[in-house]
C-alpha cells in the first residue's frame, strides 16, 4: 500500500457511509466520464476498500496511486489515475 500525504484530484466520489459494494460501483461510473491521465479521489469509511480498490484497479487496468488517511473526516481518501 502506498501512503500519501496529499494528492491533487480532478474529481471526487464521496462514498462515506454508503454500503459495500458502492465503493467499487460508483468510482467505475465516475471514471467513465473522465479523461486519460485524470485523477479520481474516493472518500470512504469502509476498511475493505483498502484491499478492494487496488485489486479493482489491477483487474480493470487503472493505476492505483495510493491512500491518505483523513484525520478530520474519519475516512480514507484513495486515488486512482485513469489509464484507459
Amino acid at each position: 500500500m502506498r501512503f500519501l500525504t496529499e494528492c491533487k484530484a480532478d474529481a471526487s466520489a464521496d462514498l462515506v457511509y454508503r454500503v459495500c459494494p458502492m465503493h467499487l460501483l460508483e468510482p467505475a461510473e465516475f471514471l467513465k466520464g473522465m479523461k486519460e491521465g485524470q485523477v479520481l479521489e474516493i472518500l470512504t469509511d469502509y476498511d475493505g476498500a483498502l484491499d478492494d480498490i487496488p485489486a479493482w484497479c489491477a483487474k480493470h487496468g487503472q493505476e492505483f496511486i495510493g491512500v491518505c488517511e483523513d484525520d478530520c473526516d474519519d475516512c480514507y481518501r484513495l486515488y486512482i489515475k485513469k489509464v484507459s
Partner: protein
Amino acid sequence: MTATGSISKRSLEDATMERTYLDHAAATPARPEVVEAMLPYFQERFGNPSAVYDLAAEIKDSIEEQRARVAELIGAPADSIIFTSCGAEANNLAIKGAALANLKKGRHLIVSAIEHHSVLNSARFLEKFHDFEVTFLPVNRYGQVEPERLRRVLTPATVLVSIQHASNEIGTVQQIPELAALCREHGVVFHTDAVATAGSIPIDVKDMQVDLLTLSGPALGAPKGIGALYFRPKVRLVPQIHSGIQESGRRGGTENVPGIIGLGTAAKLALGELEERARHLRFLRDRLVAGVMDRIPAVIYTGHPEERLPGHASFCFVGIEGEALIFMLNRRGIYANTGSACASKALKVSPTLCAIGLSPDVAQGSIVFTFSRDNREEEMDYVLVELPQAVERLRSFSPVWHKKMAAASGESR
C-alpha cells in the same frame, strides 16, 4: 356561490346519499391513473432491478424515470431522491442518518414541539441511545417557529434542525426559507417534513434552502407503502436499513417497484394540477370555515388563519370531546379526524394543541377536516347542517359546557 352563500336543499339531499369523506390527511384513495400505471409491475414487469439482464435494466430505467418525476415536483435533481417505505421511514433516515453522520461535530438536535411522531421519536431515540441532547422548540399560538427563537438555541454542537413544512393537525405552514437560511448560516443540516405539503402547495428545495425533505406517497394519491427523502448533494446519511446497492447504498432492501411507479405517476399528476387543486380546496375550506364560525358559538379555528394548507380546516369546540363528535358525525356519514390519531387513541391531549397554548379542556374538542380534489361544495353544506346539531347535542349533556354557561351568565348578571 360565495363562501357564505345559501345551502340548496337538493344538493344537500345528494350529499347525504353518499359518504362525505373529509379525512384525506389520514388516508386518501390511490388515483385510478396511478393504479393503472402500477399494475404491469406486479406480474408482467416483476423483475428485480438489481439483476444484470435486460429485464432488470428496463425496470431500473422505469425507477429512474419516476425518480426524476418526484424530483421535479420539488425542484430537485433526480439523483437526490431516495425511495423509502413511507414518510415515517424517510423522517427516521433524515434524523438518525444525518445526526449519526455528524457525530464529530456534536450531539445536539433541535426539533419543533409539534413534529410528527416519527421525528419526535427519532430524536428521543438519539437522546436515549446515542447521548444526544434534544431541544424541543416551542411554537407561537399559530403553531409557527419564530426564527429568532431558533437562532437562540443553535449551539456549536448542533448538527441537525428538523421543522415540518406544515402541520397536518392545525394546517399551519412554516416560514421554512428563513429557518433554513439560519441553519445554513451556522453550518447546520436542516430537514423539513413535507408530507402535508408535497403536491398541495409549491415546493422548491433550492428556494427553501433545505438539506433534507420528506414526502409521502399516500398524501399524493399513490398507495400506502411508498415515500421519499430528498437530500442535498454533499449531505451524508448513515443508512438505517443496511443491505446492498439499492438506492445507491443509502437505503437497502429490494425496491418496491409498483410503489415507486405509483409515487412517480402521482407526483407528475400533482405537479400539473397544483394551482387548480389548491384553488378548489381553498374554496371548500373557506366555505366550511365561514359556515362553522357563523353557525357555532364558542369555537376556535386552530392554526394560522392565512398561512395554512389549502385543504385543511381545524377547530376546537369548547365543552365537548372530539372523539364523541367524530362518532356522531360518523353516524351521519361524515368522516373527519381529531387531528392526532396517536394522541386520540391513547386518550392523550394532543401535544400540538398544547404547544399552541390551548388548555387541555379546549384541546379535547379538536376536529380536523381535510379535503381532496374530489370533494364538493355540497359536502361542505351537508357538514354545515349536521355539525352544528351534533355540537349542540353533545354540549347539552356536557358538564364542562354547562359550567361554562353558568359562569358566563353569572358574569353577565
